């Protein structure tokens, strides 16, 4: 994931955590209804939905720019996945002059 997407995600987390807590909740704790839905309900579900939409934008956007690298993962079939080739790093001095 690109640096920019990572930053967007952290910002999104902070903003979502703030929006879903006091004092924002108190601001929307009113005896009104919006489109027939009580304001508090409306606000909570709206924020939730917007967070999901923004997540889609950030995650899928970053996918376009950076296709999935082949991550190390346990092969599904092989009960014994290949171990990393072990080598003591000190054993092989570099060949460069």
């Amino acid at each position, binding site marked *: 994931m690109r640096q920019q997407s990572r930053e967007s995600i952290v910002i999104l987390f902070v903003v979502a955590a703030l929006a879903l807590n006091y004092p924002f909740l108190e601001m929307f704790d009113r005896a009104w209804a919006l489109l027939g839905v009580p304001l508090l309900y409306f606000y909570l579900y709206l924020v939730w939905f917007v967070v999901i939409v923004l*997540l889609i934008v950030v995650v*899928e956007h970053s996918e376009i720019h950076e296709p999935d690298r082949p991550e190390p993962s346990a092969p599904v079939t092989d009960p014994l996945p290949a171990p*990393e080739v*072990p080598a003591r790093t000190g054993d092989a001095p570099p060949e460069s002059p």
Partner: protein
Amino acid sequence: MLGDSVIIAGALAYMGLLFGIAYYGDRRADTGRSIIANPYIYTLSLAIYCTAWTFYGSVGLAAASGVDFLPIYLGPTLMAVLFWFILRRIVRITKVHRITSIADFVASRYGKSGLLAGMVTVIVVLGILPYISIQLKAIATSFSLLRQYPAVAMPAFSAHQPFWADTTFLVALVLIIFAILFGTRHIDTTERHEGMVAAVAFESLFKLVAFILVGIVVTFSLFDGPSDVFRQAAQRPELAALMRFEVVPGGYGGWLSLTFLSMMAFLFLPRQFQVLVVENVNEAHIRKAIWLFPLYLFAINLFVLPIALGGRLIFTGGEVDADMFVLGLPMAAHQPDLALLVFLGGLSAATSMILFETVALSTMVCNDVVMPILLRVNPRWLAGLPDLSGLLLGIRRVGIAVMILLGYLYFRFIGETYALAASGLISFAAAAQFAPPILIGLYWKRACRRGALIGLSSGFLVWGYTLLLPAMARSGWISAGFVEQGPLGWELLKPYALFGLKDMDPYMHSVFWSMLVNVGGLVIGSMLSRPDAIEQVQASQFVNILERERHDGDSLLWRGMVDTAELYDLLARFLGPQRASEAFDHYAQENGDCPLQADPRLIHYTERLLAGAIGAASARVMISSIVMGEVLSIEEVMTILDESTQVIEYSRRLEQKSRELEAASAELREANNRLRELDRLKDEFISTVTHELRTPLTSIRAFSEILLANPDMDVEQRSKFLGIIVKESERLTRLINQVLDMAKIDSGRIEWCIEDLDLRALIQNAINSTSQLFHDQAVTLCEELGDRPVIIAGDHDRLTQVIINLLSNAVKFCPRQTGQVTLRLRALADRWRLEVRDNGPGIAPDQHKLIFEKFHQVNDAHAGKPKGTGLGLPISQKIVEHHNGRIWVESAVGQGATFIVELPMQ
């Protein structure tokens, strides 16, 4: 019509379908064509988070306290936002270290500590068991409500029914069979259960569809859309209150702590850890789950509030418990098919939770409690057994059966109590105790075993004291005075108001105190203790997991010698001979051969395989029991690590040096080439100069010799010869002067005398001093110099030299009589432009650049013998360039030539 037989047949058919799916999933996995290896199945399997507690309980909670149920789903949504940072790291570590459970994870991080693994297991079992029984209770309650149809009323709960006639007991038995069949097929080194994951994914989809269908029926068929539900509810004051925040118990603080708890529980409940981490097929699937899973939660919660309020509006007399609104409403709407579907949806939610929770728990109990005890208590008996994989499977199967049966008994004999109802959140709080050792351990290398032990145990004690014991007191098992007045009347120790902190919601209170001691114990304990070698190695491997390519650090820890055959025997006893020989073949393939005397690498490889089967801590004990030779001390390990880091650092520097060297030698090579070129040019220059000097010198000498040999030559002849000698001497002098000028300019030794001067006047002077030349050659000169002084900064003598040079060149190449030279001075935007045009033979385009090179002269048939020294133009160019100007020629053969000088304005 719904009868018992229909319902039971439906439930059994549904379970049969699950068996089919699980079987198919396992078959596909065995043949290598996994059906769960895609992000959608992964996301659906995460929805195991939504248990029967969600399916029925969310509505119950909403009917009693409005939005209070939401933090339980907002927390995981927030956690999903952070998946890429936290979950990916955990998954990577788990894959590399073959970790199979949350107990194993904590133990591995803190130096493969058996004690920590055991402690985590105990916390989990104590915290989760009641949670399993509420799932069974949900099945029982929904069944007994549904069988009343067409009547819609809560039946009196009867504990007197014999258990063999109890449907819940039957369901529990089916679940035991299911979990044993698909959860403990064989001892695997990765501990993954594809069939179960497939079944759970199906169940997640099923419960989502069932819940949304109920929501649609209630909202649009019983009522006239959501706004109708809310409008009707708003007219009743007790329901209107549910639309405000004040009904949420604990207020904003309670809300916050509930959000935190569910964030942590979402990661660290054993079943969540199992599906999120252990069953993860591919890290890339996490990416999709980041937004898809919150979307699932959003969808399944969309109709909770309309159903809750609708239920309160319809069941005004309280004939149906709010927890059963989801089932009661379709029954009230006379839709038995939908009611059956809802029952099966609730069954899905409950069974998937029970399946994975018990499989995860039994693995932990087997690996982290029973095996270590057996290893310690009776190692000789264990050593006598040829094949331990059967024993391991047996322990796990018994574990699953015991766990489900305990859950059943708990529900049946303890039944309707506060402790059971609150067990969901209480187990969330228990799971949250793993957050500090895991999350801090992921990022802080210094966190060590003693800190984790102190933090976890004290967090657990505080959790038990502030949540579990009061819950028991409220259920009447211990004296209620314990909560009211504190133990033995000590006010300060009241479990809901520890040290007088009495204004908090019980959960917030417990979260505060348990996290305080947990994090505090971890940090202080870590700061005060000295981690040993294996702790340091594990810590650095966990923290640097995403940065490091290789993970072989702890192979350094094995220095002893052991026969490969012994390692093989050990592995075969736990995995069975077939898997063990596959593993060793695999190793031999990877590494070329399998040495008779096992090296540290092979020992480590075996340890990791064993860790997959029996947990990291036990694996370490088993290996160290056969590896002869001391375990390295911390100093030795650190020395080895240090040495290798030093070597790495050293080689990195070497590489850098050699890169620098390469760059430098490339530069040197280039400089050398340049020098050689200059050398060649200098040689050429010298040979040209000497050649040019010799020509006049030869003629001077020849004529002087003639004069010397013929003293009586006639006067006319003599003066002609002398004239030639003088002219050639002048030419010689001019040449030498120019060479000197050139050398001075080239070496920068020339002194420039820059001052403000009038370029127009300067040109006029130059014209005057060349007028004789024009006259001699009969060439006309046209000047267009304008009528204003042109002030520039420059060296008077040098610029004069340039102009004289250009003018005399022009005259030289003009035909006699018809020759015409035009001199034009004009202003451009930011510079002065001087043009000297002649009507001579012109210069071919390929010569335009060359004529500014030293000693280059245009030699062609028309021009005949070169007339200049070949230094005039190069010198002019140097001078103009020194004035930040430009000089070039525009010409074509037969069209005359124009030399253009441009000088910047001041």
